[in-house]
């Protein structure tokens, strides 16, 4: 029998979920302008929604911390000997717990928006009502189909444990950050639907949406970057992006959202592209749902896991389907009324943003096709295909060249018709400088691939242009405040692209079968295999190898790649040992020994990794700055 305490907790937590269901139902009823449900007000209900979910989330954390194995979720995903931080992160290292976290963030955004000022009451009510319909749907799903508080009648002595590959400090924070991004777009979606209902998608709407869409985007960027960083040092394959379905699923909403933030900006400044902005808002949120749930339910990785748990997968598919049908019919019905007469000249900043929007949609199509195509051929034609990284790099690279060009030129164009040749003459020094540097780089490094050279050239142009644009003196020689967020993010993107290309070109690797005492060579470095020893830790045993890295006979660093043997659940992982230098990373990873005599060790030189992360960080900070600046303050001429 489950303990009495556990039973109480079981009843209380389920009761809390029910309270949230009722509050959300009342909140959603406000979508109709009725006189019955004027009380309790939006803010009171938002408090109830937040507190009920927050409490149930805290209860779940408590259950994991005290290792109450009467609860199925704790039993299947935790272990009493696990370090505290992983008991904590084990809460969202599984389907049910991560759902609850997802809902918590959904409710939190709802609450924060309900508190925000300077928004008309009716518009706020409708937005919160739509948000609450979603909260209702997800809490119902959680309660009936994947209840985190299910209890068992067995007195299990200990739990099964968290997948060791997930036992990593980065992975403890990666899901929450990513979720804030995904869920942030739910509010943007609700705002878009509210705009459609009230037929007020205008400059004011854009300025309400702007901080939310920018912060969601910044979080999503950070979440993806954390995941990529984790893959880089934890998976031990020597790469940071593998184009696998799970990564692509998070990249797709990011691409749509990147297009969206730029549309919100033009909408705010010029009052154009209303319909397209709404479509992107709907698309971004739908893709976020795909990103969170189709990944978790296993549809993307394998069709078979879907069949093993049809309830969950079907609910999500149904939900996405309903959202799309509802929002697009509303859109079809009301889009005529929200569209103002567009007026944008051919050569203008607006057009540049439009072109890049379309290029982003093209890249999105590529990622979507690459992810879904093998699934489709498998299901429909029973033919298996693999779509590997090369498909993406060959198709995306030429688009990136155009994309970088428009990213560079658009901010330099005015909102009204501009003469292109005048701009180019104005920027002649910039262009000549970038061209010279690119030529020097390509000669020095013997780089003669046209695509790569062009990407480096335009990235360089973008970086220099963004940097010079942010250092802007007026006639009195005082530094003018410029659009720092934009310039920082754009420069970051240029740096990222340069690092990605140079990394792909100059990465080097060697694989050796090594015995203790061997000296292995990688470029100008010698690695002496010093010793190998067994180490015992609280939650795993490991085989640790020591390599002394020498250059010209001098010891520079010691590398300690490991193979870890976890017991709960039994898993073997390989831990890379990485030396981060500013211009290149040196990366050693060991494979599980095939025989007792030697180990297989793989050594990588990964140039520009630090710079790659730096570029990404600049993009994130740029996003945060843009999110925190309220509308109109940094208007340029």
């Amino acid at each position: 029998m489950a303990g009495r305490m556990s039973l109480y907790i079981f009843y209380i937590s389920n009761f809390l979920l029910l309270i949230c269901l009722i509050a959300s139902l009342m909140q959603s009823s406000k979508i109709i302008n009725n006189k019955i449900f004027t009380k309790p007000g939006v803010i009171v209900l938002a408090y109830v929604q937040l507190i009920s979910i927050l409490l149930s989330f805290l209860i779940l954390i408590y259950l994991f911390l005290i290792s109450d194995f009467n609860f199925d979720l704790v039993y299947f995903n935790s272990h009493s000997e696990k370090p505290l931080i992983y008991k904590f992160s084990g809460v969202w290292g599984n389907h049910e717990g991560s759902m609850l976290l997802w809902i918590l963030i959904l409710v939190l955004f709802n609450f924060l928006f309900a508190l925000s000022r300077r928004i008309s009451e009716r518009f706020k009510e409708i937005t919160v009502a739509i948000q609450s319909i979603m909260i209702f749907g997800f809490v119902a799903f959680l309660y009936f189909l994947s209840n985190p508080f299910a209890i068992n009648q067995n007195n299990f002595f200990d739990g099964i444990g968290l997948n060791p590959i997930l036992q990593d400090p980065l992975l403890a924070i990666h899901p929450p950050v990513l979720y804030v991004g995904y869920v942030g777009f739910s509010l943007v979606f609700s705002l878009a639907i509210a705009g459609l209902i009230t037929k007020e998608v205008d400059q004011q709407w854009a300025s309400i949406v702007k901080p939310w869409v920018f912060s969601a985007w910044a979080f999503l960027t950070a979440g993806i970057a954390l995941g990529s960083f984790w893959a880089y040092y934890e998976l031990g394959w020597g790469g940071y992006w593998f184009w696998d379905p799970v990564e692509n699923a998070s990249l797709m909403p990011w691409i749509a959202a990147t297009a969206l933030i730029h549309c919100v900006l033009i909408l705010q400044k010029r009052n154009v592209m209303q319909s397209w902005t709404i479509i992107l808002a709907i698309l971004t949120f739908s893709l976020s749902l795909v990103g969170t749930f189709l990944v978790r339910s296993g549809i993307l990785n394998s069709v078979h896991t879907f069949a093993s748990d049809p309830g969950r997968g079907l609910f999500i598919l149904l939900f996405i389907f309903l959202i799309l049908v509802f929002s697009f019919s509303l859109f079809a019905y009301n889009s005529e009324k929200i569209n103002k007469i567009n007026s944008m000249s051919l050569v203008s900043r607006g057009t540049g943003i439009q072109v890049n929007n379309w290029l982003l949609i093209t890249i999105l199509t590529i990622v979507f096709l690459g992810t879904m195509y093998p699934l489709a051929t498998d299901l429909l034609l029973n033919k298996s295909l693999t779509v590997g990284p090369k498909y993406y790099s060959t198709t995306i690279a030429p688009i990136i060249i155009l994309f970088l060009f428009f990213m560079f030129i658009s901010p330099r164009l005015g909102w009204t018709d501009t003469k292109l040749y005048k701009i180019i003459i104005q920027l002649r020094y910039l262009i000549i400088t970038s061209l010279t540097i690119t030529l020097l780089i390509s000669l020095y490094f013997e780089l003669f691939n046209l695509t790569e050279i062009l990407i480096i050239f335009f990235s360089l142009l973008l970086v220099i242009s963004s940097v010079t644009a942010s250092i802007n003196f007026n006639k009195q020689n005082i530094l003018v405040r410029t659009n720092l967020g934009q310039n920082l993010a754009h420069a970051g993107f240029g740096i990222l692209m340069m690092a990605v290309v140079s990394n792909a070109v100059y990465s080097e690797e060697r694989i050796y079968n090594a015995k203790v005492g061997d000296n292995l060579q990688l470029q100008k470095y010698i690695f002496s295999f010093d010793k190998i020893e067994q180490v015992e830790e609280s939650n795993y045993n490991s085989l640790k190898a020591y390599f002394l890295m020498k250059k010209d006979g001098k010891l520079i660093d010691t590398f300690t790649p490991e193979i870890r043997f976890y017991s709960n659940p039994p898993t073997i992982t390989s831990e890379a040992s990485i030396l981060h230098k500013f211009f290149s990373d040196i990366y050693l990873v060991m494979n599980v020994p095939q025989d007792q005599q030697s180990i297989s060790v793989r050594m990588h030189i990964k140039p520009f990794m630090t710079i790659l992360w730096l570029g990404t960080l600049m993009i994130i900070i740029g996003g945060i700055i843009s999110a925190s600046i309220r509308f109109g303050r940094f208007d340029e001429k």
Partner: protein
Amino acid sequence: MTKIIKIFLLLFLLQNNTIAEDSRAIELFKEVRCLVCQGQTIHESNAELAEDIKKLIREKISQGETDRQIKEYLVERYGDWILMTPPFNSLTYILWSFPFLIMIIGAFAIYRQKRGQA
């Protein structure tokens, strides 16, 4: 003295030769999927089957077969699935050409919209 230099040169050449072949093998390993892993290439994997295919590829290289011949052999034996990059054939026309179609449609749409206003 010249003898020693010659021996060194020979050694150097030999070494270069093996490295060149090794990197050719690695490039090929990166193009071939590990059949028992999740989305890994045989290069990244050390599963038994992956090791077998690596051995097979090394043998074929030393027999003087071209990359193309080796890939064709693998496709014949295991299907298109084994190649990391899908080939351009009737099954993948849409995969390879659809993105460019999308791009052209977009360019056309934006241009028409602008001209309509002028």
